[in-house]
């Protein structure tokens, strides 16, 4: 595909992710607002979040000034080469920064220098997987630093939590992570849970759950049960929007699993702020379409 054209598709994908709140997230915030008693700070906070999202969408300005790190999950067919995808994604990220869809968010940890265009080592992050079918499917996640700091990994058993090597132990880890986050990760958050795997794949599994629709059903009935139970329980914590009290502490809980080593049992919690920004695109026979699920 023509490099400029491909870059243009990636640029539009980034613009949508940064400035348009996904419809499932918007609906979940609206449901939260209904749940909160009238005339409470929690109810008015959720209303303001929806109003902010409306303004951002109208003006193509970022929903949140922390436009996050960019994670591209790409499946590509034989008509695309990995190098052209990486080039297009990077060029689009730099262009999106110049257009103020993104804040310059790539800082060299040794020198402290901000690259100024969101490009750097590991930035943007791309996960490429080849497929037999022609065309391309790209899912983009923008995840801010505040919520990334609220993410955490556990190793079961955990004696502090009284958490053993089973789903009940997993449940306790998630309760602990959301309690510890309080309002710092910009609650009400979306909670991605990775069960099993190793240190890095476990975190990656947790983060990928954030791409799922808040309205989907986990194909694994045991995980469906865990997700539903945690959603109800976490909303009993009383942390509320921005940690200032209320019923709406999380918008959703999504869990995935990976086979683990016999010796290892990791539970990773990827906390995402209420501005759970994602956008997807499909390129087929030169035509692009954008969607959320």
């Amino acid at each position, binding site marked *: 595909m023509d490099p400029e054209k491909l870059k243009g598709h990636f640029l539009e994908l980034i613009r949508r992710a940064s400035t348009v709140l996904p419809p499932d997230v918007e609906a979940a915030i609206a449901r939260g607002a209904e749940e909160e008693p009238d005339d409470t700070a929690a109810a008015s906070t959720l209303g303001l979040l929806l109003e902010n999202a409306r303004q951002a969408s109208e003006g193509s300005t970022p929903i949140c000034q922390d436009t996050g790190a960019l994670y591209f999950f790409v499946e590509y067919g034989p008509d695309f080469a990995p190098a052209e995808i990486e080039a297009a994604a990077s060029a689009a990220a730099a262009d999106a920064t110049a257009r103020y869809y993104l804040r310059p968010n790539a800082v060299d940890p040794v020198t402290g220098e901000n690259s100024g265009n969101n490009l750097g080592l590991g930035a943007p992050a791309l996960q490429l997987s080849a497929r037999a079918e022609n065309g391309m499917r790209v899912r983009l996640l923008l995840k801010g630093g505040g919520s990334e700091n609220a993410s955490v990994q556990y190793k079961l058993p955990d004696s502090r939590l009284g958490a053993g090597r089973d789903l009940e132990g997993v449940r306790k880890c998630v309760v602990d992570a959301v309690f510890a986050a309080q309002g710092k990760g910009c609650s009400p958050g979306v909670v991605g849970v990775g069960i099993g795997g190793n240190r890095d794949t476990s975190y990656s599994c947790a983060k990928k759950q954030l791409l799922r629709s808040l309205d989907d059903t986990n194909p694994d009935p045991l995980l469906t049960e865990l997700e539903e139970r945690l959603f109800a329980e976490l909303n009993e*914590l009383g942390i509320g929007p921005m940690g200032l009290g209320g019923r709406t502490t999380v918008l959703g809980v999504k869990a995935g699993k990976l086979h683990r080593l016999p010796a290892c049992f990791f539970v990773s919690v990827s906390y995402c702020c209420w501005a759970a920004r994602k956008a997807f695109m499909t390129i087929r026979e030169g035509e692009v379409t954008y969607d959320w699920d």
Partner: protein
Amino acid sequence: MIGIKLPVSADEIRTLKAGDEVSITGVMVTARDAAHKYLVETDGEDVRDVLKDSMIYHCGPVVRKDESGEYSFVAAGPTTSIREEPYEAPVIEKYGVRGVIGKGGMGAKTLEACGEFGSVYLSALGGLATTLAQSVVEVLDVKKLEEFGVPEAFWVIRVENFPAIVTMDSHGRSLHDEIAELSKGNYERLLKGGR
């Protein structure tokens, strides 16, 4: 809604109570991680005059520069404040800062400094970036832009009717501590097996 005009006196700040909703108008300064380190380690000559009796906003904005070189804020919600906990109390004391605006609350040292020196911590709504940017009516100056980068620089801004809630006051009360305490009981029940 209580109107606060900057610069503001310690006496006026001491009338504010946790839970008060305020609307702030005047000149304040953004400062976050690199900026706080600088404020503690130097005499802060670039910003000390403007900080006196003003407020610090924990914010790393998206900033537009137009063709004539003028800056304006595009998106400007608060960043997580707790990272500045090691620095904030000395900054409040050293520079006479009357308020710190951010999200998520701060710790015991900051709460103590609010009481001792007459300051408050205010919560702005996290992720309210587009809406809050509209309260930033003018960018007056920027310091340390080259060195710290756009998110971390000191942006000297004029705000009008900037909305925030006092969540830590100068009388030792922190709404963050109260919510943490309240949720702790629920947390302990859920850890024991919940329902």
